């Protein structure tokens, strides 16, 4: 850069200052504070002495259970979003352009609707003798007993999938829409059946979209706390709820909450690394 004189360099730095300041002040700063708190001794809410015991206490089976539940619920929600979202994204991508826009808009509508309204709506539907229950009983499930869906992990997964499906559909759609559909014809022409076309051509070529979609949903689902709080009840506590509780509910334990938050951050970084490797393999193809 210096070979071209200082002017462009100076200008570049000038442009970078506001966002850098913004990031430092509002992202890295608070993050640093949380990281610091996570190393402190528990108090009410925090004792400013470094001891790192919060991380040790995270290994308690109760917290490991929360961690395990969070991971498994987030993974299940991600997989379900992928399974449901892929056909949807594919369907939309293959419509004529003007329909695509309308359909895509419809997918995004829940994102623009007040989240509490949506969740309370689900609560009404999922409670015993609610619409969902009656539908399932009508289909012959449950043997006459009211089905308990609300306040179970199943309700949490349902909510998470409902919530984060658009985050899956969007990158998938972007990936599928760019696809040269003659490649699918070429595969069929060469003797590939539906499954072979999917596994050998479609999925590998839309891998960046799959990775991005999975990452987005997983990140969001792992950190979710509104959905598990309202739909899951006490038995479906996730990491997000743990963080929230340790910070806000009595007995407060900020180092514990901060350590859980740091653990979540570490898990997300691993997920991002994975997604960027998977997504990056196909770059330029």
């Amino acid at each position, binding site marked *: 850069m210096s070979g071209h004189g200082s002017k462009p360099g100076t200008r570049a730095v000038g442009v970078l200052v506001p966002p850098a300041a913004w990031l430092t002040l509002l992202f890295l700063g608070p993050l640093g504070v949380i990281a610091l708190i996570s190393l402190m001794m528990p108090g009410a809410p925090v004792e400013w002495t470094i001891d790192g015991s919060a991380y040790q206490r995270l290994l308690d089976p109760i917290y490991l259970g929360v961690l395990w539940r969070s991971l498994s619920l987030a993974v299940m929600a991600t997989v379900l979003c992928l399974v449901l979202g892929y056909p949807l994204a594919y369907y939309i991508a293959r419509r004529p352009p003007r329909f695509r826009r309308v359909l895509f808009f419809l997918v995004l509508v829940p994102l623009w609707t007040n989240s509490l309204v949506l969740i309370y709506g689900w609560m009404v539907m999922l409670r015993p003798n609610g619409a969902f229950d009656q539908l399932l009983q009508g289909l012959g499930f449950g043997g006459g007993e009211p089905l308990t869906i609300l306040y179970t992990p199943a309700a949490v997964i349902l909510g998470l999938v409902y919530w984060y499906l658009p985050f899956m559909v969007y990158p998938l759609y972007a990936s599928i829409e760019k696809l040269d559909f003659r*490649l699918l014809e070429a595969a069929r*022409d060469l003797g590939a059946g539906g499954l072979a076309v999917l596994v050998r051509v479609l999925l590998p070529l839309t891998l960046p979209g799959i990775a991005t979609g999975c990452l987005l949903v997983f990140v969001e689902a792992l950190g979710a706390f509104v959905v598990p709080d309202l739909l899951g009840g006490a038995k479906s506590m996730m990491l997000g709820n743990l963080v929230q509780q340790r910070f806000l509910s009595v007995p407060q334990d900020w180092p514990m909450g901060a350590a859980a938050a740091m653990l979540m951050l570490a898990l997300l970084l691993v997920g991002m690394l994975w997604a960027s490797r998977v997504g990056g393999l*196909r770059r330029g193809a």
Partner: protein
Amino acid sequence: MVRDVSLAIREGEFFSLLGPSGCGKTTLLRLLAGFESPTSGEILLAGSGVQDVPARRRDLNIVFQHYALFPHLSVARNVAFGLEMQKVAGDEIQRRVADALALVRLQGLGARMPRELSGGQQQRVALARALITRPAVLLLDEPLGALDLKLRREMQSELKALQRRLGTTFVYVTHDQEEALAMSDRVGVMHDGQLLQVGAPHEIYDRPVNRFVAAFIGESNFLAAEVTGYDDPDLIVRSAGESLRVRGERIAIGRRVTLALRPERLRIMPAGDSVAVNLLDGRLRECVYLGTGWRCEIELVDGSVMRASLPPQDSGVLSVGSRVMLTFAPPDVAILESDS
């Protein structure tokens, strides 16, 4: 859109579907491949109907316009795709992939990715990929469209040689009439969803069935004429105030016809020279030297302009602005029904 197409392609022939873009030739090809289904009519392959046979089970493969190589697979894996789908054993696949790559002169490039190859090389990979399962018919959708002229010429003769060597039936879609004439055993000319004429290249060129074919394949001059009599094997017609002899089957006297004359079949003679039949008076309007010969425009008495291509040695009579006579031999005219 394709309408009323009835076509029988012979085993082992190089058949071209020729027509301007949007004429339905690609649709016809996609019907054959099984990517589209006809709303009515049937498609037979080796004597049996294939309407209910999905594309993947039809014994024909397609070479796509822009190759449609799998970008995530190496050249070898691209070529092997068809065999892998047939669950052919691994060592046989390896052997046949090597053979197929040798066939298209791409030995040693199997490990490359498609994007690392030139357009011409990608074209060859597409060819190898489509040929490796030894289909009865190879469909080619403007396969040379994306290549530059020099490479096109090379690939044309290579494709033709390949087809001869393998004996595979080629159905070749193109809008390039020169390409179709140069490569094909037979050509089908399409326009507006209909098949206008099917025949050997020289038949199509010398005996076009209508004005569209005469104008689309090569170049033609058109003269309105009226049948006035017979002098077997010729017809006597009247056009531009002259009585002309043209060869063709008898048409009722008084019928209006159109004469199609190829520029290279026309000769120019000095005015006043009257040794030949079929003389049209005119004035030399323009003459351009093209190296291979002269290209001239002659304005006839009635104001219509005829184009003539002359060999280089014919320059003696060419003085722009002078009065000349145009002449042609009776067999060198195609007689078109006027209503077409």
